[in-house]
């Protein structure tokens, strides 16, 4: 194959540096000497645990709702499909804080649906851990839907036809043929989704508020630390980074077999 051509190599290296250098900045400025004592704070572990739990639950929610949605968009033609597809990207372009306000308007105590939830079930989502999951899922789901839909569109639909001629119902076709075929796309989407949920800040703090142990995830802790103690913020960011990179690397080895 020879050497990679320089019109590709040079932008690639610049792109990589652009993504990696800020991380190097964090590492250089990290207060290494006081790091252990800063990490020992109970709130750090609490926030980290909450972040991991909520991001994982949010990803599960996104899988549960997003994969069928992606299937619908890729496999069933219905009026307004293009509009729905465009609407799904709304959480991507919406500033997350606005997304949080929008969630409050719908699911808040006086929101369109929230009012009813409160009156009927006594359920109120804002300021709860469930609210964090809702905010994260709202912001992260487009990543999953878009990558799964892409995988579905790329998958050969004739495999599904073959399954139908063997007597498989649409549901059987979906879970025994379609899903395994697009599994790499689902995994990739779930990873993106999880990463986005883990870093979620704006919608979370707006919809779920900020309370240690209940709704204060790592990004919220980082933001508030930044107000008074930037060095702590760097430490918290590094912890979040190391943990997420470690988890993603481990998952990659487990699920995504590199060619």
């Amino acid at each position: 194959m020879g050497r990679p051509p320089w019109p590709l190599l040079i932008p690639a290296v610049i792109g990589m540096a652009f993504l990696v250098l800020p991380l190097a900045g964090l590492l250089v400025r990290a207060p290494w000497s006081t790091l252990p004592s800063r990490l020992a704070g109970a709130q750090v572990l609490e926030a980290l645990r909450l972040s991991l739990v909520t991001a994982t639950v949010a990803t599960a929610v996104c899988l549960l709702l997003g994969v069928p949605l992606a299937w619908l968009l890729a496999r069933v033609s219905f009026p307004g499909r293009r509009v729905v597809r465009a609407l799904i990207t709304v959480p991507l372009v919406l500033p997350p804080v606005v997304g949080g306000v929008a969630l409050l308007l719908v699911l808040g105590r006086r929101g369109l649906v929230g009012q009813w939830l409160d009156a009927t079930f006594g359920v109120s989502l804002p300021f709860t851990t469930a609210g964090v999951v809702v905010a994260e899922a709202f912001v992260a789901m487009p990543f999953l839907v878009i990558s799964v839909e892409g995988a579905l569109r790329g998958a050969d639909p004739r495999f599904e036809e073959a399954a139908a001629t063997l007597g498989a119902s649409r549901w059987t076709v979906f879970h025994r043929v379609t899903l395994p075929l697009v599994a790499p796309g689902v995994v990739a989407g779930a990873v993106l989704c999880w990463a986005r949920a883990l870093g979620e800040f704006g919608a979370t703090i707006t919809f779920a508020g900020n309370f240690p142990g209940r709704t204060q995830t790592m990004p919220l802790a980082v933001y508030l630390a930044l107000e008074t103690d930037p060095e702590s913020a760097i430490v918290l960011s590094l912890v979040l980074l190391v943990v997420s990179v470690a988890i993603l690397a481990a998952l990659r080895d487990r699920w995504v077999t590199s060619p």
Partner: protein
Amino acid sequence: MFRRLSRWAVAAPVVLALATGLSGCGSGEPAATASSPTSASTTAPAEATTLNVFAAASLTGTFTELGKAFEAAHPGASVRFNFGSSATLAQQITQGAPADVFAAASPATMKTVTDASLAASPVTFVRNKLEIAVPPDNPAKVDALSDLADPKVKVALCAAQVPCGAAAVKALDAAGVTVKPVTLEQDVKATLTKVQLGEVDAALVYKTDVLASQGKVTGIAFPEADKAVNDYPIAPLSNASAPGLAQQFVDLVLSQQGRDVLGKAGFETP
């Protein structure tokens, strides 16, 4: 056809990258020339005509008004504001952001800047007092600070790391009231939003924020607020590009005209 299209799709970004890359490599000189007009306007010995004011978010309304008055009084000068969380602004200034004046919502955030020897002798120009903010219909029937201790009342406070949160802690301590808030918001505007949307029954915010909400929340004054008064310091910055204008702006804020504008918004002037 598709083949050709897809080849173009791949080629286009590369061509773009090449074009920009080439102009980037070969144009050290032109680039410097291109940027020289701006650098001249900020580093020339002659005084710059643009004044950069970094001010706490709670000053947005009043300072915008004062900025217009300043421009009217100083033909040719223009005032640019950067409103935000005082702590964020202080960090931007210490990281070298181009600022001429800093108006902070707390002495602590101003201290970050004075500690870095970027400002000398800040002056307290206003004080802000807390009030209890409730939705107009006041669903939890709150009328005193002690009502916030009721576990059935949902309360939002600012996080202790930001000035309004620090003040809230002080006021509650002074009153001997223990509150279990449902959330510790990142700034006073976010706290106010929660009241406006009816997500909480009450919150502790600044009197100025209650006034600025124009009736969307109702403010309830409480005596312990006097124990937690927030001082707003202002200072021209030592490496200002427009030191003369900076001092004149600070003077305007401290003048009777400035006090009138700020007082109307609910600030207490010393």
